[in-house]
Structures are given as C-alpha cells and as structure tokens.
C-alpha cells in the first residue's frame, strides 16, 4: 500500500512539473526564439563581447522579430582547446567558436568549419589577412585578432638613456650595458608559463628563417633540416636571460606585464596583446614596439604578422542562419569599429575606421618598410617543446646542443604522426 502511495505521489509531481514547463513556453509564443551557443578563448575581453552579443540580440529582435539568446562561454585560454575538442568530439559543438588560424586546416579536414566565402563579411576583410584564413579558395573563419607584434619597450626609459631601438646583436648588447649602467634592468623575464619564453624563439626563428634560410621550414617538414642551422638565435637568448629580472620562473605573464608597466624593466619579449594589462596598470606608460635583433644582420630584425584568433561557424549548427548572421555582424559597418577598438584589436576590414594606439603604429612602420614576415606555422608539439626547453635552459638543466637535438626529434615525430 505504501509503495502505491509513493508511486502515485511521484507521478503527480512529475506531471505537475511537466505541465508547469508547458505553460512557460506558451506564454512567449508571439516571438520566435533561437538559442545560440558561442564559445570564445579570450576571457579578458568578456565585457566587450557580452555587450556586443546584447547588441546583436537587440538588433535581431528589432529587425527580424527574432528572440535570440546568446550563451557566451569563455574558458581560460590554456584550457580552451581541450574544452572545445571535448565538445566537438561529443557532438555538442557550439554554433560559433574561436580557433587559432594555425588550426584551420585540421578543423577543416575534420568537417568542423562552415564555408564563409559567399557571406557579406568576406568582401570586407583585407586581402592579405583573408589569405591567412583561406584554404582551397574557401574563406573558413572570420579573422578577429590579427596583429603585427614584436618585443615591447618602455620609450621613456630609452629616451632618458639616449637609446634607440637595436637592430643587431651588438647593438642589443650595448643597449643592455647602457641600461644597466643607468640602474635599469633591461629585460622583464616571466617564464612561469611556458608560452612566454616560447615567444623568443617565435620571433627569432621567424626573423632569421624568412631572411637568411627561406627554405628551412619546408625542409624541416621533410625531415631534411635541423635546428643546428638556427644556432645563433641562442646568442640573443643568452643576452636576454643574462640581462633580465631575477626569479623568472616565479613570474607569471600578467604580473610580469604589470611590473614592466611600473618600470621594473625597460624591455619585455611579449606581444602587443599584453598592452591591455600594461595600460590599465599604468595609463601613462609610453609603450613602444621594436623588432628583436637576431644576429649581426640588421635585416633579420622583423615584426611578426599573424592572425591568431578567428571565429568559425560550425556546419552542424541547429540555427545556422542566425549563426551566420552573427558572424556577419562581427564585421558590421556600424558597430564593428567600436568593438575592435575597445578590445584593442587591429583594423582588418574595410568597415574598421578608428585611430590605432602608438604601439600599433610602431609595428606598422616596420611593416611599411618591409621588415615583417608572415608567422611561421610550426607543429604545436614543437612550439610547446620550445617553451619547455627554454624554461629548462633558464634553470640550466639543458645545453644548446641538447635543445637542438630534442627539437629536431620532436619535429620529426610530429611529421611522422601528421603524415
């Protein structure tokens, strides 16, 4: 008897809940509702994108009588890829998601990117930037963060010491000794996170390879090259490490940027994406960008042009038309400029008309003089290994010879696996 009562009670509760749920949907019948899941990898721009999503929701409601609800998720950038992969593998793909332009080929092959070539946005993106997101003549993602970047320096300190941006190894050594003599620490070292030391190899390899050994990367992909050809970049790395702040392994990227902003060092090998932290810490900072010297050849000192973050639409999206509308809205003629400017992104489409910051201008000058290169695409295992090895090099656990050997091995393994 008791059992029966419990059963009846639970059935009535379940029915009640179901009925309540039904009522709710009936109440908002007149407007069509669409839910859009958007996943992005830069939590530091959460506010800006939330505002933009709200604008999109309002626009859709007004223009198309469509009630769009955007669920914006921003996992932290170092966990982003694993979260995204888990969701793609579990058939729970977000309607729109950001990805690094280096991964476009892989995601395209596995059928996770919608072709955007025929969308309005494709006509707006600058040609040289469109190339970085195009494969087989198909534009596969909306470029979001495209930048020219190189090392950062404190212009006020340089001016006070009567210094100019260095172009060669010996000029860099000179800059370091002058700075040290005046009581400044030349470089901020923030090696706690492995991607930060890795920026040194990114800049140095890019400058050297594109100037002196243009076929190096393609030979590396054919197992016919070696990091031994790149040995001289370690002279610069030595100079940076010997003239840097202490406790580098205990310094994270954000706190490093903050301390650099407070004048703790004169230079910081860190991209322009750190400008947000730097300028909020010290709004009066006179921030500049200089191309990191590679060796005694001044032509090797170049800035890196790359598209990092892009936004893609998933082909299996249940509300693809709205997702595509959102993708187009990212490069909207009226609203896009304000978004890109507030995030500090660089202009990359005809709809972007705004004043850029001084450090963006610095980098653009290098680009105008032809002192720039397209980012080298290395296998991600090699990029990660570089970060790890530079940490180990800093704590003197490996020698340059061992680094060369291990990087060659990692590159060959990646080649074998990606065949």
């Amino acid at each position, binding site marked *: 008897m008791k059992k029966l009562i419990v059963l009846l009670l639970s059935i009535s509760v379940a029915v009640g809940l179901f009925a309540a749920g039904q009522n709710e949907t009936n109440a908002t019948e007149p407007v069509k509702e669409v839910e859009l899941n958007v996943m992005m990898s830069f939590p530091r721009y959460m506010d800006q994108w939330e505002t933009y999503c709200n604008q999109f929701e309002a626009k859709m409601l007004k223009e198309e009588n469509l009630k769009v609800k955007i669920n914006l998720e921003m996992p932290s950038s170092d966990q982003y*890829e*694993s979260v995204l*992969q888990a969701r*793609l*593998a579990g058939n729970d793909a977000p309607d729109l998601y950001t990805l690094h332009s280096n991964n476009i080929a*892989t*995601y395209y*092959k*596995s*059928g*996770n990117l919608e072709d955007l070539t025929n969308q309005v946005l494709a006509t707006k993106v600058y040609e040289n930037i469109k190339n970085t997101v195009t494969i087989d003549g198909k534009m596969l993602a909306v470029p979001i963060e495209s930048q020219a970047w190189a090392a950062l320096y404190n212009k006020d300190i340089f001016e006070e010491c009567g210094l100019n941006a260095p172009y060669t190894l010996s000029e860099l050594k000179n800059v370091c000794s002058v700075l040290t003599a005046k009581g400044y620490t030349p470089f901020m070292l923030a*090696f*706690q*996170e*492995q991607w930060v030391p890795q920026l040194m190899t990114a800049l140095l390899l890019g400058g050297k390879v594109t100037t002196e050994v243009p076929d190096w990367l393609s030979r590396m992909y054919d197992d016919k090259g070696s990091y031994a050809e790149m040995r001289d970049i370690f002279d610069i790395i030595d100079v940076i490490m010997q003239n840097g702040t202490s*406790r*580098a*392994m*205990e*310094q*994270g990227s954000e*706190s490093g940027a903050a301390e650099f902003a407070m004048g703790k060092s004169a230079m910081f090998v860190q991209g322009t994406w750190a400008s947000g932290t730097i300028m909020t810490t010290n709004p009066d900072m006179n921030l500049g960008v200089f191309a990191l010297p590679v060796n005694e050849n001044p032509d090797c000192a170049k800035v890196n042009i790359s598209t990092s973050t892009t936004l893609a639409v998933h082909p299996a999206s249940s509300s693809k038309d709205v997702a595509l509308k959102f993708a187009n809205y990212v490069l909207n003629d009226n609203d896009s400029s304000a978004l890109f400017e507030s995030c500090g992104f660089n202009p990359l489409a005809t709809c972007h008309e705004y004043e850029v910051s001084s450090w963006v201008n610095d980098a653009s000058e290098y680009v105008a003089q032809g002192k720039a290169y397209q980012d080298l695409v290395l*296998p*991600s*295992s090699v990029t*990660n*290994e570089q970060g*790890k*090895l530079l*940490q*180990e090099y*800093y*704590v003197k*656990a*490996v020698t340059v010879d061992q680094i060369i050997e291990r990087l060659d091995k990692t590159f060959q*393994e*990646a080649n074998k*696996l*990606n065949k």
Partner: protein
Amino acid sequence: MNSKAKQNRSLLVFTLPAILVYMIFKLVPALFGIFYSVTDWNGLNKNFNIIGLDNFKEILSDVYFWNSIIFTLKYVVVMVLVANVLALLLANLIESLSKAKGFFRTIFFMPNMISMIIGGYMWMFIFTKVLYYFADNYGMSFLDHSWIGNPKWSFVAIVIVSSWAMVGYLMIIYIAALQGVPSQIKESAYLDGAGKWTCFFKIILPMIRHALTICIFWTLNAGFQVFDVIYSLTGGGPGRATQSVSLNIYEEAFQNNIRFGYASAKSTILFLIVLVVTLVQLKFMKKRELEL
C-alpha cells in the same frame, strides 16, 4: 522465492540510482578509454583505425612517460607519509581539546571546500609574491628559494599545497575512528601504567587500523592521479621536471600532437598500476585490522 534473494533484490533496487550514475559517468567512459587505447584516434576526427598494441609498445620507450611515473611514485610515497602523519596528529590534538573542537575541525577541513585549482593559484601567489616579500623586506632569507624554478623546492611546494588540501579530509576520518575507541580500554591501560605514547601505539593505533586502511587507500589513489595542484603551481615545469603521470597524459591528449588513443593507452597503464598497488595495500592491511 527465498528471503535471501528477496533481500538482495531490494538492495539492488535501492542502490540502483547510484549504480546507474556510476555506470554511465564512470564505468562506461573508462571502458571506452580502454577501447581507445588500441586506436590511433586523435580526439577530433570522425574515423580512426584500430592498431592493436602499437600504442603500448611505443610507451615502453617513452622516456617522458617513465620519468613522470618516477616523479609520481616519489610524490605518492611522500604524500602517504606526510598527509597521514599530519592528519593523525591533528585528529589527536583536536580530540584532546576540551573546548572549540568544532571550530578547529571546521578550520582544518575548510581547504576541502575550495576547488584545488583555485587553491593552487592562491598558493602560487603565496610562493611567488608573499614569501619573497617577507624574504626581501624582513630578512627571512630562508624563504628565498626558487619555489617554481628549482625542481627540488617546487616538489616541497607541491607537497605543502597537497597536504594542505588533503589533511582536513583524512583528519575527519581519523577523528571518527578515534571516537570509536572505547574509553574503558584506554582507562584500564592507564591504570596498568601505560604512558601516553605506549597507549597510543599499543591501544589506539591498532584500534583504528580500519581508518588507516581507508586513509592510506585514499591517499594512494589521489596521489597517483595528482593533477590540479601541479597544473596550477608549476604546470609541470621547468620543462618536465615536475610532470606527474596525469599531466603527461593531458599533454599527450590535448596539447602536443593530440594523440587521444596513445594518451588512453597511458591512462590504461596508470589504471593498472593503481589497481595493483591498492589491491596489494588492501590485502596487506585488511589482514592486520582488529575487530572487537
């Protein structure tokens, strides 16, 4: 139908929700994981090949993996000792208090309520900023170590943070066990002239062996799977000097060449190691438990 079968059936019905949750969220993914360990799936593609035991053969010569196993073993040994001794000590101290037991119990249990990844970042701030502040401004030079950069000291840092997180939980189990020791036995031992230490080692410790079994089992298990503390504190660095097995698996599955199948094979090996170690431990310790 006899009553025994009936009893079993009602037992099954009552535990069914728990069993279902366990099967769907633990057992099935685990079995899938074992299946993926014989594939070359990259976690992204829609199709993959079954490659037999190739993954396991490759693991045999994977130096980074075996180094991470050695590091993890070292960590497990130290943690089993440090965490259990500390927890027993705290449990005894708190039990011997006449007032404010609840207060101290809550305080020491508190770290369990915070996610370890957050706890890890909090401690990172302490190790990389606060300690140096004391070292630089108050001359406490014994704090001035490379807490993240020197593998020796970062091991100490990791053990400190892990103990901070683990001890509260173990302490609660030990307190419960200590309360279960009948006071008349202790009293008669005192009357027979046993000192505090003798009483602890000869009476109390044998009486709480069952708690020891559980706590050591739990620390072994948690130790082998350590991830979040190391991830938030050192990220396994410098290089791979403080990389635990879980971090090595994570790196293989999500960071480098995204080899999901190979990473699953590593997980399977870790599972076997944990299984063997804990089985041996349980068998060994169960035998020595006392029943009143």
